[in-house]
């Protein structure tokens, strides 16, 4: 009896640890996109700015992310949490609920700022790449985030070369106007995702250093702002997580606010 009780305790403990570990797994806590954040107040308000999230096809991967789509990472809590901060910190008239836009139709042209996550897995068709190029040349702005290491970079860069075969991806210098539009950001450090809490690592894969890159247009204005080896989406999403370092969340808000105001002024 005593023996079987011990076995039971061990099983329960294993189960508890297992559940806890599962809980800490990135993106595994909220299997359905709409479940992790309540519908915010006034979700259909007509506003100047809407947080537009880009839906894109991804490389042929199976499993959970294959089914759900890597574009939904952190969705929608990150988007909504970010907009709360955006409204508090700036005068931008923003809608509380995000908008999902795709490259398969022209609706994207109504949203001159768009956010794409996990672009290390995107797989744009040539038609989608053409529409994205047209969007950017008309004056649209794309911010990409949360992709890490050299493999994901290669996938992203391959997609970008379909969009702009002749336009290089370059480092954005620290003194670029994009780093001064609202906050004067001189120190651009790496912003790890929530995985830091259970791995203790600030990087993922071989993405040891944060890279702040961009694609410029002919007039020297950034069209695509690239946050490589950082995870700003997690930093917004876990802004209410006591264990997640505040300095990363604050920096993510500052950077993104700068990007948005830059996009609305350049």
């Amino acid at each position: 009896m005593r023996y079987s009780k011990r076995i039971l305790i061990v099983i329960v403990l294993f189960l508890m640890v297992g559940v806890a570990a599962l809980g800490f797994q990135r993106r595994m806590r909220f299997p359905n996109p709409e479940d992790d954040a309540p519908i915010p107040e006034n979700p259909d308000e007509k506003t100047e700015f809407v947080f537009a999230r880009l839906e894109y096809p991804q490389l042929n991967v199976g499993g959970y992310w294959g089914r759900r789509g890597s574009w939904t990472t952190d969705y929608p809590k990150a988007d909504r949490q970010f907009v709360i901060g955006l409204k508090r910190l700036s005068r931008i008239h923003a809608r509380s609920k995000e908008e999902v836009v795709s490259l398969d139709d022209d609706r994207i042209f109504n949203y001159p700022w768009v956010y794409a996550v996990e672009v290390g897995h995107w797989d744009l068709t040539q038609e989608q790449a053409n529409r994205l190029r047209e969007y950017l040349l008309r004056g649209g702005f794309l911010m990409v985030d949360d992709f890490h290491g050299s493999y994901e970079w290669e996938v992203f860069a391959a997609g970008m070369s379909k969009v702009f075969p002749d336009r290089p991806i370059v480092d954005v210098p620290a003194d670029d106007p994009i780093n001064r539009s609202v906050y004067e950001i001189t120190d651009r450090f790496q912003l790890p995702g929530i995985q830091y809490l259970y791995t203790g690592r600030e990087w993922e894969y071989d993405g040891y250093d944060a890279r702040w890159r961009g694609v410029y247009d002919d007039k020297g204005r950034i069209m695509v702002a690239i946050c490589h080896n950082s995870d700003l989406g997690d930093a917004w999403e876990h802004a209410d997580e006591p264990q997640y370092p505040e300095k990363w969340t604050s920096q993510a808000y500052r950077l993104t606010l700068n990007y948005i105001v830059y996009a609305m002024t350049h």
Partner: protein
Amino acid sequence: MFEWLFQYPRIVFDKGTFTFLSGWPAWLLVTLIVLAAGVLAWRLFWPEAIEALPREQRNFSFADRLRLRLTPKGIVVWALQASFAALVLFLLWRPGLEISALRSQQNMIAVLVDDSGSMLESENGETRLALAKRLLSEQILPELTDRFAVKVYAVGSRANPVAGINEISGAGAASQLGESLAQLSRDTANLPLGGVLLVSDGADNRQAISAELLSEVRARRVPVHTLGLGRTAMERDVEVEDLRVAPRTFASAKLSAQVRIRQGGFGGKAARLTLKLDGNVVANRELLLPDDARPRIEEITFPVGDAGAKVLEASIEAVEGEQNLSNNLRRQLINVDPDKPRILYVEGEPRWEMKFIRRAMEEEQTIELVSMLRTTQNKIYRQGVRDGKELEDGFPLRAEDLFGFSGIVIGTVESNWFTPAQLELIKRFVDERGGGLLMLGGRDGLGDGAYALSPLEPLLPVSLPAGSNSFTRNPAKAFLTARGEESLITRLNDDSAENRKQWDQLPELADSQRVGDPRPGATVLLETGQANRRTPLLATQRFGYGRTAVFATGGSWKWQMLLDHRDETHEIFWRQLLRWLVTDSPRQVSSELSDQILFDRGDLTLTTRVRDKKWIAVNDATVTARVSQPNGATIEQRLEPVSGQSGEYRLQTSVTSPGTYITEIVAMRGSEEVGRDSITFRREDGVAEAFGRVQNRPLLQALSQRTGGNYYTADDASKIASDMTYSEAGLTIRETRDLWPMPVFFLLLLALKSAEWLLRRRWGAL
């Protein structure tokens, strides 16, 4: 004949309002007319009793018997009788006209006589000016002076009062009819001006009479009557009658030149028009020559390039059979200033409109767009500033800081963000400094920004609704108005049909804002809303020395995002709108010449206005003009202050050799330079006589028609004085005129009865 039949001059019918003086209701008249017609029909067409019919018809039905009576002849007689009855009843109701007439001895009449050189053209042994003087002194002025205070003006670059018509010599500069009328309207704002008579050939008018200029006159409801002098047609000749272009602009700007072509004997033939700037072809187009009576006006847009004095030439290639080729070319001078005008754009919150306006202006690079954007509650993001200090403390508080700009754009910024002193400063910026103010729609803009109660509201071309909720983020379509079709601001394509098509096909705006009615002097270029409830979307007007505009949306960025990236519609629109905003903003030292091209004469007047940084007139400046002559020599001459005109200096000079003269004007106050300006003029000898200078009748007709006046020729000049009595301006009384005694009515009654009698007699008894 007209007056014999109708008893009153035609103008009474044009201006009068019809009414019944009996006071009886009109519906009763209509009822009685219907009744009378019915009774007459009954009498004529009611079937006879069966007993009265011949035997063979006694079995006819009622309908058959009615058909027997209802013959075409019977209907004609009935129509004549019914018309007679209707006319008698109509006259019993005492038809009349109500009309405003000027009170005798209490009003002023302005007589403007064209003082330009073309008035010295001779026809039938008498110059146009001599004919004008004769008609005025013999027929018009004696009658007018009996009833009104008459003031005579000589019209050159402005309307100058003269003591009598004999002071007018035809030696004045080319006339600016539109500006002179607007100036007259302003100068006589406090006087009971009852009407204007403009005596002119319209031939040497140097300025387009814009809708804006006319609006000022129309706002006062002063009718401008025109007396056109000079011949109206030419023979087997093509002439570039006029070339109009802004005399000054800024580097890299685009200008619009208007070329007026007239011909005689070649109507409908093809010709080639070429526009050259400093000898280089900037436009070349094939066109069909207009009909004999009307000139054709071609509008061509071209880039002016770098700074400097430039010669613009418009020429028509010789048409087969044309004898006189020396009038196929016209020149004008353009001074391209090196300084770019600066516009201050204030935006209360980040929005897409600002991004895309900035982009449109960045690519054009003709105007410096300085922007200040409230990104957060306490932060202002500045772009385009000269250094870190500029606008560091926010919107300028001092005139010398604000007046350095030529235009201001206010976006979605609530009015109370500005201090009362800043709002007053913006008002002075437009009114006194001569800057342009453009206000955009937005959730804190126009009415929703509480501007309805601010000092800026009276400046705007539209009234603003008090209270909020005038701004909506619903898609809105922009509709081009008739005025918009004529405007340079809304010209997306030089071809007017193509232009309208482009506007029709533009995507909807992201949002729009409801504004009130346009002001009397405003021009509405775009409208929005449903067909039966359109409200102004883009309106402009002049205010004081400056100009204002309202663009009641913050959503034109959709024209950029929803059209192909190569489409330039959005850019063209914003460049044109912002160029309009600043093009006429004067500099601290700004000069104008009586004429830029002198034909066979050398006299000219240079006038310079000097203002300090606060735009206060400077009366103690030393102003000198350095004139570089065609042979390379330079003469320095001093301008003298003009008495009665604060801050104005004038030089009357003369040049003898033909060629181009470049003049640099410098204003000094002690050892400090207030500012400088440069201006160019040209003397051309042996050219003027080649130009026919026929009367520009369409211009004069349009001018009178748009202001509610009449156009007269020398033959009907005798009517002018009596016609001018009828006006809605000045001090008027409402008079009524009975219409029943008009001979035409009695003749009509007689004709109706005679016709009936004659017909009945011819057809036999009915």
